[in-house]
Each structure stands twice: as C-alpha cells, then as structure tokens.
C-alpha cells in the first residue's frame, strides 16, 4: 500500500465504453486576423542580401526607378516573428477537416479518397520540386518518363488513342475538351453553324459553364421520371447545330445511364462529338471505358479518382483522352518517346495551343502515377468494386434513417455515390439539408448538399470511395441518424447548429451587400471599421 492511502481499497476502475457518437469538439483557437497579430519591427524570415560588391557596382536600381514606378511606402503587410506566423497557420490548420481527419464521405462527386503519404513524400523530392519547365530535356528524362507512363496507363483505362496531362484540374480539362471539339469542327468546316452544346443537369456545372465560355449555346437536359437522362429529350435537342454532348456517367446521382451508347449514337448521327466527364470514374475503373461507349473525348480528375490531395481546392490535375481524330488538336506540347529518350513535341500545327504554363501539374502527375503503380490492374478493379460496394452498403444503411430517401431508379443499384433527399424530414420537421450539414460539423464530419439548382429537393450527396472502412460508414450513418432523430425530437438543436465547431452562425447577409461585403482586411477596415 502506498503511503498515505488508508482504509478500503478501491477496485481498479476500467475506462467506460465510448458512447456511440464521438464527443467531438473542433479546435477553436479564436485566432485574430493576421493583421491584428502584427508587432512593428518583427521579422519572419530574412531574405539574402546581395554582396557588397554588387551593391557597389550597381547602387540601388529600385531607388532609381522613375517616379511613377517607384513604390513610395512599403506594403502594409503584418509583421510577425517566424514562430508566430507558424503558430497562426498551424492553429488555422487545426480548424480544418481534411481526409486525414474526418470520414470524408460527405463531399459527394469529389471522391475524397485517401491520398497516400508516400506519394506526397515522393512529390516533395527536389528531383521534382526544383525542376524548371524549360530545362534541357536531357535533364528531365525522369519526369518525362513518368508523364509518358501515366499517359499510357490512362490510355488503357479510357481506351483512348492519346491523353494530355496539361489541364490544371477538372474544369480546365472540360474546357480543354470543348476547345478541341471547337477546333475539330472548325477544321471540318462546320464550326460556323455548330453552335450548341448539350449537357445534363446531373453533369457537373462546369460542363455547361465551360461550353458557354467556349462560345456555345447550352442546352440542358433534365432527367426522366426515373432519374435517367432522357433519350427522347436528347433526340429532340440534337440537330445540325449540335457541336457536342458533354455528359457524366454515372451522373451525380450515382445512376449509370444504361442507354449511353444510344446517346452517343444519336449525337454522332447528327454530326456532333461526345465528351465524357469522368469525374465519377472511381466506381468503373477497369469495368467500362469511355472509348467502348463510343466517346470521342473524355477527362479524368487526377485529384479525385487518382488520389492526389485536394489541397483545399487545388492544385489538382486533369487528363484528357482523345480518339485518333482529335489527336491533332491536343494542347502543345505532347510528350514523346523515340525509343531512346523522351522529348517534347511542339510541332503540332492544328493544336489548340497552350492550356497552362508548363506541361501540367507535375507533382500531381507523379502522385497519380505512383498511386496506380501501387495497385496495378487488380488493385484498380478492387478500388472500383470496393467503392461501389461501400456505396451500396451505405445506401442500405442510410435508408434505415427516418426522413431520408434516395429518389429515382427504384430497386436499382447505384455506382459510387448517391444523391439522397431529406424532403420528408424537411416537411415533417422544418429542418433543411444545409442545417443537417451544420449539425454534422458538430460530430467532426463534412457534409455537402448538391450543386445548384437543387433538382433533388433537400439534397445530400454521399460518396464513400474505397478508402473508408465499414466502421467508418457505420459511424457516419450513426451521425446522420442522430441528427434526423434530433430533427424530429428537438429541431431547435439542429436549427441553431453548429455548437461544437470553430465558429458559430455567420451573418450571411453582408456577403451579398456591396456596401458591406469585405473580401479583404483593408476593405473591412474601410467599410466596416471605418478606421482608414
């Protein structure tokens, strides 16, 4: 017996079993805006000074700038010591949930899978990060080989003739495709009158928006009563003015369009091309390919299906696959191999030219390559099948929850995601889907509704990918179930959420008021604080 302990001995007490729901609380550092942390004279990093001989030789060219180009006072940046910068950002990072922290299945359409750490480590190698895009090709054979091999892999996965890796992300890839389609029609002499692009409402909004940017009139097809893209609607929309169909499959509802070949045929018969947005490819890798359904062009989001990290919204990477007819229009340059070494081919007279500086987001191309090489053909099939199994398991479990439904395609299986509806719950309780999302944050999870417009009422889009375990899915379902029960029993708790988040309900009105909105601290000081 330890000294000082007397009387009856307490039996060892086990830690009680964890409750079903995590008692989460998001970090709340209550950080000021960085300008408020400024202390005059502090330094975070010192840039290297030129040697005195340089200064003696040239003086101060900045000081000699003509009056109109010489900055009169230093920019009013905050002044912080290095630790204070680090700490401020480290704290803000803790007020963020990424795949590394949460069961990130709530951001449907975005394929929030695990981004392997080893690939980050490889991508951070100075052998990649310190390469300049204009180095002699003999000095960049490694990265060119990676790009060439990745192109080969994506050609096989899509069935296409060539793949460009230049687009910066998914929407840029959609634009690249429509730009190549425009060039194709112009080269065939009917660019003038083919001025319409057809898409579906359950395809990503960037299909419609990028087509508009490229100068096209956009026709958007709505689904039939079962939620399938409407083949009759397509048939009446196509004409000699049709430049292209831009379509996702499976769509953002997770429903695979079984008549996709017919869609492609109808558009081809009208002389249009077919562009396949493969943002939702995760469930069909190795199962079905763009070319096999007759598509002329397609694109992958490497930050979705191919695991590169999403970086709070980029950099991602896009890859566009094309048939032989479209190859001449690919962006410049292409990466080629002459049997001995890799090189860049700039001599492409029909090319649409450049889509971005350099040749693509090289660090993400490396990550995507490494990811495929860790899996191989069997592994990719396992990815697809598990993503689909996880999704259908989740569907079964979510539908056990009161107030939720999965509209459309009754009795059919879904591919890799589902767009659910809380319509019944909203009608019963007055709790809306956005509020469920705010409440979900209280349990350490991210949740998303849908793109606009909300065709499915009170939508929620879940995509469990292959990365999450059965226990993860069960936990997410338990959170949703709890919130649904709360909505029926105690709606105010949901209405007033979040409670355990970094911040509380934010005034949304000012964001749409030109007199009150403040996109920067200086605007806030001028318009709201009125101290400048």
């Amino acid at each position: 017996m330890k000294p000082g302990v007397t009387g009856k001995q307490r039996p060892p007490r086990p830690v009680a079993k964890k409750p079903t729901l995590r008692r989460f609380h998001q970090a709340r550092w209550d950080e000021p805006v960085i300008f408020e942390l400024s202390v005059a004279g502090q330094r975070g990093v010192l840039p290297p000074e030129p040697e005195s001989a340089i200064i003696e030789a040239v003086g101060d060219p900045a000081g000699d700038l003509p009056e109109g180009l010489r900055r009169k006072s230093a920019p009013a940046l905050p002044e912080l010591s290095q630790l204070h910068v680090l700490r401020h950002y480290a704290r803000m990072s803790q007020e963020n949930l990424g795949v590394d922290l949460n069961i990130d299945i709530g951001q449907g359409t975005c394929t929030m899978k695990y981004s392997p750490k080893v690939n980050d480590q490889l991508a951070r190698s100075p052998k990649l990060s310190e390469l300049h895009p204009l180095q002699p090709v003999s000095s960049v054979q490694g990265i060119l080989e990676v790009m060439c091999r990745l192109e080969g892999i994506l050609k096989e996965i899509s069935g296409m003739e060539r793949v460009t890796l230049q687009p910066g992300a998914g929407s840029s890839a959609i634009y690249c495709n429509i730009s190549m389609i425009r060039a194709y029609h112009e080269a065939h002499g009917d660019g003038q009158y083919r001025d319409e692009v057809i898409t579906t409402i359950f395809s990503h909004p960037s299909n419609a928006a990028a087509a508009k940017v490229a100068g096209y009139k956009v026709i958007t097809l709505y689904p039939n009563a079962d939620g399938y893209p409407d083949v009759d609607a397509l048939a009446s929309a196509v004409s000699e003015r049709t430049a292209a169909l831009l379509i996702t499959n499976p769509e953002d509802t997770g429903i695979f369009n079984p008549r996709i070949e017919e869609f492609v045929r109808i558009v081809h018969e009208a002389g249009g091309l077919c562009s396949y947005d493969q943002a939702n490819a995760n469930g069909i890798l190795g199962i079905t390919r763009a070319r096999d359904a007759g598509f002329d062009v397609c694109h992958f989001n490497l930050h979705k299906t191919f695991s590169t990290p999403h970086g709070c919204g980029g950099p991602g990477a896009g890859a566009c696959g094309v048939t032989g007819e479209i190859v001449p229009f690919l962006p410049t340059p292409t990466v080629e191999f002459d049997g001995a070494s890799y090189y860049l081919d700039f001599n492409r007279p029909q090319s649409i030219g450049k889509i971005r500086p350099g040749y693509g987001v090289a660090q993400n191309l490396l990550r995507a390559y490494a990811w495929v090489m860790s899996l191989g053909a069997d592994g990719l099939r396992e990815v697809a099948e598990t993503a689909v199994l996880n999704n259908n398991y989740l569907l079964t479990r979510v539908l056990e929850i009161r107030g939720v439904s999965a509209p459309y395609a009754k009795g059919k299986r879904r591919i890799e995601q589902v767009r659910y509806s809380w319509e019944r719950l909203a009608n019963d309780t007055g709790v809306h889907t956005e509020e469920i999302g705010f409440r979900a944050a209280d349990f350490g999870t991210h949740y998303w509704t849908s793109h606009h417009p909300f065709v499915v009422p009170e939508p929620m889009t879940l995509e469990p990918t292959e990365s999450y375990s059965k226990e993860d899915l069960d936990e997410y379902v338990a959170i949703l179930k709890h919130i649904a029960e709360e909505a029926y029993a105690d709606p105010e708790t949901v209405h007033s959420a979040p409670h355990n988040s970094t911040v509380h309900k934010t005034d949304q009105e000012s964001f749409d008021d030109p007199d009150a909105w403040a996109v920067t601290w200086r605007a806030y000081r001028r318009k709201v604080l009125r101290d400048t």
Partner: protein
Amino acid sequence: MIPKKPVVYPYIPNSNPIVKREMLNAVGAKSVDELYAEIPESIRLKRKLDLPEPFLSEASLVRHVESLLAKNQSTRENLSFLGAGCAQHYVPAVCDEINSRGEFLTAYAGEPYEDHGRFQSLFEYESMMAEMLNMDVVNVPVYDGGQATSTALRMAGRITGRKLALLPATTAPDKLSQIRDYVRPDVHVELVAFDPATGLMDLDALGRQINVQTAAVFIENPSYLGFLETQASEIGTVAHEHGSLFVVGVDPISLGVISPPVEYGGDIACGDIQSLGIHMNYGGGHAGFIATRDEEAFVAQFPSRLFGVATTSVEGEYGFGDVAYERTSFAVREEGKEWVGTAAALWGITAGVYLALMGPQGMVEIGRGIMQRTRYAMQRLAGLPDVRVPFANTPHFKEFVVDFNRTSKTVTEINRALHERGIFGGSDLSREFPALGQCGLYCVTETHTQADIGRLVSAIQEVLA
C-alpha cells in the same frame, strides 16, 4: 506453384475478404458484379486492364519512383538562369511546413463551419495580396497567371461591353496562345508593337489601334522580357481616354519596390503567385490572382470564389463565407461568369504564409536585392566581347535579354555548352521572337550570389572563346 492469396490493399480497408462478405450480405448481393447490373454487357471490358505489374509494398514503390526521379537533374545540381514566367526563388521552410499539413493538404471544398481554417487563411491571402496591390478585392487563386490574364481580359470585355484587347507584342507566345484560345468568343486580341531600342510599347501604334471597341489595354510590369514598362501611366491614360480598362500583369514579388498598377491607373491587376513561396515543380507551382477596386461592377464579373469576413452570433468572432456567390457557375451553371472549380487554393494559402513571413521589410529588401543582382548580371554580361544586353537603359526586374547575334554561336549551342558546365543558360528566344535572332532570356533572383553570376559570365566567356 504457390497459390496466390488475395491481396488486402493497405489503401482499401474493405478489400479484406471477411469484411467484404459481411457487406455483400448486408446489401443482399452474392457478388460485387451484381452491383454493376446497370452497365450493359456491350460496353463492359471483358478482360483485365493491361497495366504494368504493381509495386505492392511501399518500399518497392519508393524504390521504383526514386529510380525514375534519379534520372532528373534539378536546379539544385545545376546553376540555373531559367525564368520566362517560372522562377527559382527561395522557399522558406514554414511555407512547406504549412502546405504539407494534412488538414490543409487533404481538405477540399468544405463549408465555413468545419473548414474555418481554409476560409480564414484564404481570406488572409486575399488581404495580404491586397496590401501588395493596394486594391480592395483579390480572388481565391485561379490555375495560373495565364488563366488570370485571360479572365481579366474577359472581365474587361463584360464590364465595358466591348470586344477588343490590345496586348504588348512582347507577351510570351505560350501565354498568348493560352489567352487567345480562352478569350476568343468574347474578345479579339491584337498586339501592339514595341520599340526595338527600349522594348517599350510603341505609343503611336497604340494610338492607331485603340478605338471605341477596345475593352482593355494590357501591359506587363515587368514584361516577359524583363524590362519595366516605364510609360505605364501614359498607356493607362490613353486607355481611359478611350473608355477602355487598363489591365496590368505583375510579378507580385516585385511589388515591395515597384508601384502596384493601381498607382499608375490600373483597373485590373493580374498575374502568377509562383514567386511567393512555391517551388517550381516543373511548372506545377503556378497559381493566378486577379485584383480590382471594390466596385460592384467589377466584383460582379469575377468568376472565382471571393471569401469575405462577417460577424457571427458570438461577439468578437470572425466568420467567413462566399461574397456574391450568385455570380458563380456553382450557383447558376452557364449563367455564371465563366466557371469556377478546383484551381490552386493551397498555393494561395502558401503565398499568404510567404507574405506574412516576409513582412513589409522583407518584400522591400527582396525586391531591391533582385533588381541589384539583375542589374549586376546585365552589366557583367554586357562586358563580354560580342555579347549585347538590349533594352539596357530601361529598368529591369529579375529577367533580361542577352543577345548573342554577334557571336558565332546559336543559343542552342551556347546552352548545350553551359549545360556541360553544370549551368542552365537562359531560355532560347529565337523560336519565340524570331526578330530578335539569337537571344536568351536570363533570370536572376535572390537565390543567386555574386559568385554564381561570376561563374555564368566566365562560362559564357569560355564557351564563346
């Protein structure tokens, strides 16, 4: 033969056959194949994908990828003077530390309530860029400087209701190609000639070309060829006299010492932030910014996210959210302004970290030091026999042209010989600007020492001897 046991993939927890069986039971399916019932047989791939054999262990994967990377020689092993819009700057360790944190690296399009950190850090990025630019509105980054310029020109087209943009003939051909492809349906691009002696825009030509259809006059400061457009203010005035907007591309790392565009009449500023704490990544380190005054007519034309600050239900708490979201394609598809999607947010956060580390003094010092090194390198190279440095009387920032026409060698030959000496010479302008003949575009930053510049000069001397 040893029977192959099923692989349990470390990235795929439910590839475990025991778990898989349990889940199949839960969904009432005998096999995963049943879940694909909607995919017609006619488009099924009836064979296994023909892909290289995988490296199942992490150790073997690393070995493989590193063996590929080993075939690269980077700017660490070679002394590089390559620029042309992508430059080797020192990246402070804290920049990499923050953008490697999983909370930022692996988050995506979260909402303010669970990704407050993303919103605040990008708001702060916008705010620090705003101080560099002396403008009140800066967007969440787009893909790159070329995209930012393209969008800035389309914004100018929408704001003015006009169709023509005038760009300097010194614009990089690659960037021009990107811009032309993007703005085509809305804006016609015309080039304005430059003065061969100074590099500056030919103001007479500008006067002849500008008209009532001109939406934007665009210049770059510094220009692609490295000199500063010292007539910026006059060009802005000409633009405004014709009711056009003055759009200016800048390298933000220059703004500690060079006036931001708004000071000489710029209506829209745009450019690339790769210089602000982001590794070159073989061209993967780009991100673009667009900045304007805080006027509704301008704000309404941004396609990008604009994160703003507001109050919350708790006193003393900052909340963040999307300003004027209804402009975006996320809200209204093709009725939005261009499109918005995944672009380069992590580089925005990183550039914010960089500006916070550098502070006002750091940005002044780095700008001044780069100009000193640039001038020094120009002087030293101009001292070599038969080597000229054109436009030398115009102030330069970071990049400059070196003219080898009087030597007996082409830039290709010179660069090959420099590479043999462990140096990446400036990029070859002979393809991009044939009129300049055999010229190289050299880039000098704060990473270059006097000895580095001396080594370049000696090597060129040796190569030309």
